[in-house]
């Protein structure tokens, strides 16, 4: 057990009990996105294999361009927003 440091905050529960259902829905939304991606990667591999390209190694070492970084950042935000929306449910006010 590690000793409590002065910088450690008080223990707290961040999500409310009534958010537990939203948490479950968030999990499903996340799983869906994961599936979409799994499916896409598998298709991508097949497409490239059909063209005679074995891409595994190249992917591991690929450095995205600035343009692609931006594209991925937008997509990432979309993914996170989707999960957060499911987690919070409709926001009032």
């Amino acid at each position, binding site marked *: 057990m590690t000793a409590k440091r002065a910088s450690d905050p008080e223990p707290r529960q961040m999500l409310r009990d009534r958010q537990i*259902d939203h948490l479950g*829905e968030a999990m499903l*939304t996340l799983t*869906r996105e994961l*599936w*979409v991606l799994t499916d*896409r990667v598998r298709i991508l591999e097949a497409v490239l294999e059909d063209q005679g390209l074995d891409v595994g190694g190249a992917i591991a070492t690929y450095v995205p361009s600035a343009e692609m970084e931006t594209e991925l950042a937008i997509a990432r935000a979309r993914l996170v927003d989707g999960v957060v929306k*499911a987690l919070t449910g409709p926001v009032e006010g």
Partner: protein
Amino acid sequence: MDEVVLGQRGRAAIDFHCAVRGAVAKLQRAVEAELSDAGITAQTMPEKMDDRHRLVDATLAESATYGARALLGEWTAKDHGPICQDAFAEIREAVEPMLKALEDGPASLELDEALKLPAYFEQVWFHRTTGGWDASPHNGFVHGELIHKRILTRVFGGNIFGHRRTAAQRAPRRDYRHILDMGASSGHNMVALTEAFPDAEVSGVDFSARMLEQARRVANARGWAWKLYQRPCEDTGFADESFDLVSSYNLIHEIPPRIIRAVFAEAFRLLEPSGTIIMSDVPRYAEIDRMASWRFDWMARWGGEPYWRAASSTDLVQVATDAGFTDVDGSVLPGGQPYILVARKPEAAW
């Protein structure tokens, strides 16, 4: 429009959605097994529907299976609209010219911009579809082609369209000339009616402009001269005795009982003497066992179906008889779906 190819994202999201729906079906069976272990069966369930819900909720209060069934049901109910809207957005540019081209053809559509939608319709997002039937400019395509054909046919079996054909085949005559479909929506039932009676003029009424626009595309794609009108089913404005067959498919559980009665009265008014009605809908609770009707009622309760229980508890044979029809025959198909009511307007009103 069956040939429309979805983008990878839309297709994969719909695939995932259907997978979750598959999980829901398994969870539902597991829930009912838990109920059975607790001594709750179709035979022992209380008569009143609210009592059944209370008993199940109390018995399974600690059941993780029941919790998960609720969660997955809730999530899929809310998920299907947005993912299909997204799937459409992904292919919009490619599909729009085709949708536009199908506005022209033999089918006609009369929209009524001044139409005042009644509260029982306007205030409901049926099936919990975000925004309801008219959510977006292309909602007819999104509903008719994506939600119905790419999700519902997979979840409930391709036979949901076969059922419409079966209903049309129940007609006692083959010589209909003027057919009206009430609650035509994107025209799935009109397809079945047109196939069954290729020589008849087929008309459809519906509140939803977006769904009717899709029906027009469906008709034009096949070269059919459907006449489509944005009008209330209970007050169509057509002359007395304008039709010899009036039909509806899955309209009744989406309207309150007083409107159901008004729809039957309107169908009676519109029919020539000796004309036929074929009204198909979800099963009557009185004709299925208590577990099955609880299962439907549970789905309706959480699935954006505010009139389902009242409609399914309405004795449609009585409603048809009260409206003046004779030879009223209502029954559920052997597989448990749908309920089909066939009746005749008497030769001469006395």
